[in-house]
């Protein structure tokens, strides 16, 4: 399975990528939403996108809206991974088309549990 991690913090990209790698995902990353769209435009379509909210150039909410406006990417599952924890912000992200929401700080188990809920745990991680 493929995952795209989008966060303007290299540290956070490394942490999330490491968790997903450990679960068996093939992972690519991007520093903001526009770079993330570039990856999709290349034809590298992930099963999962983990995207931060506050980023320069294109933020997470704009990225979600852009992905949802393209029918070719409708199968992509999007999980917001962000420190935006206000209820109204969460509702906004879900309304835009995100499937799940993980609030920083999180643990590896929290990511794993969300993926299990989404049916996106690779087989090797379930065993």
């Amino acid at each position: 399975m493929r995952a795209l991690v989008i966060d303007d913090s290299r540290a956070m990209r490394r942490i999330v990528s490491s968790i997903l790698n450990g679960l068996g995902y093939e992972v690519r990353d991007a520093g903001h939403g526009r770079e993330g769209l570039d990856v999709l435009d290349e034809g590298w379509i992930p099963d999962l996108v983990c995207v931060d909210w506050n980023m320069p150039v294109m933020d997470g909410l704009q990225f979600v809206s852009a992905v949802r406006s393209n029918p070719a990417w409708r199968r992509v599952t999007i999980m917001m991974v962000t420190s935006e924890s206000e209820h109204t912000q969460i509702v906004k992200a879900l309304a835009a088309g995100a499937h799940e929401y993980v609030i920083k700080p999180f643990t590896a188990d929290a990511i794993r549990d969300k993926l299990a809920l989404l049916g996106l745990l690779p087989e090797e991680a379930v065993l």
Partner: protein
Amino acid sequence: MTTPDTGERRRSSDARPPITDLMDPATVQVIVDDAWTALVGEDEPLIPLPGQLPADVLSAWVDVVGPWTGSVVLTTGAQTAAELTRALLGETAPELLEYEDVADAFGEIANVVGGNVKAALPGPSGLSLPEVGDAPAVRNPEDLLRVDVLWRGQPLSISVQGALPPLPVQ
């Protein structure tokens, strides 16, 4: 007949509670502890004790803009910030840390702490991208909440500080 503007209405609508009316140090401590456990690990918890910051410090902060406007600032020694970066990145840390690595990691810790402080304040509020460097000046000592801790025996301070100067005394 027009009523002369005495400023009364403007002043009453401009009422802005200081951070100490909105949050207490224990809440900040819990937020920082949670961030630490998740990002840095639970093996090296923060000790709630003050310490003397060294001369060579680094700050990372995010700004909160909303009913309360200010910054959430983390400050520690430059060497401790580098150690924090290694702890945060774990086995993915590069062999040779550059300033950008430290700024990025320390900024992300400030982002996580700031985001959760924002969530505990009256909203809606906006959150800026993290910045790293010399901390913004404290503009109103009455609108300041500070928590001091030790990590690996080294001091770290967390300040939630208002961005606005005190209102003129009437």
